[in-house]
């Protein structure tokens, strides 16, 4: 009796599964065909070294032949990406981005401005609720914590905290990795500095962060140049505040010349989530949707992990034992991530409003 019940149950389950699976697979196949007919995907602000995007793009191109990927402006910040959508409304040419990858706080404002369109990927449910828009307009893709990349050939003792950076040892050494008026990374760095200076989460940290950088600038420690791998190696910006995945990727790229180390400051560990969205004016909407499906598949998420980014579905993947052990070993100490503060949307937008508007007047850092 029990056996019969078991048999019927399993058979009906199998029938159910096989009936669902083909329709699911059929949906994806249709998307693939439609995307291949569009033939192109335009992405923006994706440096090849950022989260291993180079490998991600190449993997996408290899898996879905016939779709060329047009990589616009890898140096753009989140603000530039939003502007690119605005500037190209109605333009179906190669300057109009299909998908954007912006800081968390840029998602809701893009939704209000009607610049993005909703889409829920097939793995939607495994994305944490706090990192996605309920209607599907934007959805978190990966996160990391702010860290310092230090050129050990120039800096004798690496700083351990945000407070350390104010010391006279680091004269003419500290730089942000973006323009704090438009780039999410730089805005979050100012926020983290504010938190380390005792600011409360939200607008207060923004104000204290600006005060911190004003002091850093006055002490002569701040270099008002965008810090990246090259200026760091060339000595222009020996200490760069950037996401840990960037710092680790750049350190690897140096191959020991110069010697560099990645330090996560212990007095202000801020984690930042980035979100994906599809432009409301995307010239190739199906290619865009296929791209999102690829990014949120196990393959795409693990590709980001190989680029030192924590993919948003990390917990889900870990639970299902999908994460290779060697990849895990290359990541920084999980204890650091336990301490990390994830600013909420409201806190971020309050701080960002203050930082972007008042950077010029409070800090006034320009090349003299």
């Amino acid at each position, binding site marked *: 009796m029990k056996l019969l019940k078991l048999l019927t149950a399993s058979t009906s389950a199998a029938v159910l599964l096989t009936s669902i699976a083909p329709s699911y697979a059929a949906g994806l196949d249709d998307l693939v065909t439609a995307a291949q007919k569009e033939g192109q995907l335009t992405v923006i602000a994706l440096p090849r070294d950022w989260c291993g995007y180079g490998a991600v793009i190449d993997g996408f191109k290899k898996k879905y032949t016939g779709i060329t990927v047009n990589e616009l*402006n890898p140096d753009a910040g989140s603000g530039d990406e939003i*502007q690119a959508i605005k*500037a190209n409304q109605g333009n179906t040419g190669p300057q109009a981005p299909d998908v954007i990858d912006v800081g968390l706080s840029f998602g809701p404002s893009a939704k209000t401005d009607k610049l993005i369109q909703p889409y829920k990927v097939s793995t939607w449910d495994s994305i944490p609720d706090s990192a996605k828009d309920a209607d599907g307009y934007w959805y978190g893709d990966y996160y990391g914590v702010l860290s310092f990349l230090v050129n050990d050939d120039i800096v004798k003792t690496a700083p351990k905290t945000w407070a350390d950076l104010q010391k006279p040892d680091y004269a003419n050494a500290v730089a942000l990795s973006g323009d704090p008026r*438009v780039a999410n990374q730089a805005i979050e760095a100012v926020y983290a500095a504010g938190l380390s200076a005792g600011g409360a989460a939200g607008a207060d940290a923004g104000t204290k962060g600006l005060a911190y950088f004003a002091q850093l600038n006055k002490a002569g420690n701040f270099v*008002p*140049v965008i810090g990246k791998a090259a200026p760091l190696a060339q*000595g222009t910006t*020996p200490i760069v505040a950037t996401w840990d995945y960037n710092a680790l990727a750049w350190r690897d790229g140096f191959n020991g010349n110069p010697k560099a180390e990645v330090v996560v400051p212990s007095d202000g560990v801020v984690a930042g989530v980035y979100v994906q969205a599809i432009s409301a004016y995307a010239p190739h909407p199906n290619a865009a949707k296929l791209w999102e499906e690829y990014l949120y598949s196990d393959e795409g998420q693990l590709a980001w992990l190989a680029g030192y980014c924590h993919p948003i579905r990390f917990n889900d993947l870990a639970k299902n034992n999908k994460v290779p052990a060697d990849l895990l070993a290359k990541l920084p100490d999980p204890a650091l991530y336990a301490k990390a503060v994830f600013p909420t949307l409201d806190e971020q937008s309050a701080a960002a409003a203050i930082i972007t508007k008042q950077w010029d007047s409070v800090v006034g850092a320009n090349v*003299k």
Partner: protein
Amino acid sequence: MSNSTDTLVANTAAPASAGVASSSGGPLHAFAGVRWGDYLGVAPFLIFAILFLIVPTAFLVVGAFIGRDGSFTFQNIIDLGTPQIVSSFWISIRVSAASAVVGAAIGLIVALAVIRGRLPEVVRSTVLTFSGVASNFAGIPLAFAFISTLGRLGLVTVVLKAAFGFDMYRAGFNILSFWGLTLTYCYFQIPLMILIIAPAIDGLKKEWSEAAATLGATPSQFWRYVGLPVLWPNLLGTLSLLFANAFGAIATAYALTGSSLNIVPILLYAQIRGDVLNNPGLGAALALGMIVITALANIVYLVIRARAERWLK
């Protein structure tokens, strides 16, 4: 990108005066007596010029006077008075002026040395060839070259520290500063100066220095009373050209300082890229400001050049 006009303008000045002599009845007089068939050959050139030189510029110029609602307004021009934009024009003018003056001075000295200094002929031709190459070397490679030389880990910095114990950066020097950028700009300003002033120095007739020597003048007296006054209009004109050249240059500054140095081309670049001024009309006004300044400087150059031609005939 730099502009090397050298003999181009020499060719322009002479024929222009010849052409003007024959057509004195206003601009349309130029078209009298020309058969329509001849226009066919010149047509592609003129069509290209109209479509891809004149109209885009005119479009921007007109766009500077159009407000957000599409009506004619001077508001955009007035908006140019915001502190950020005024200070960016000011710093552009400063950098251009500094690199023009320094470039002109050093270029003049080198050109004089090479042409009148009785150096071997091969030196002169090498210098002129090199000037032709170097004046086109602006942009990203130039910025890398100067970072490799005077950057924190640059050759000169390291050698000074190793051999003389002199830390340039501790003493306050920084390649990423106003004077650092000026120094970098001089790399294409000096060759441009040499190229343009060389024909003028050639035009200092030998008879003049011989006559001065006969009258008992020392070389310095010759330069003070004869040489420099004759060259003076050319110098002023070339100064103006160098100013315009530096004012429009963006690639070098962008590669050197990113967007930290707020010169006008970089501000315009950011505006085109991402509408950072939140006002398309203001961007057009910015472009109009740039055109006015570079056009004025170039017109000054051409006018002075035409008048200086008299001395050299």
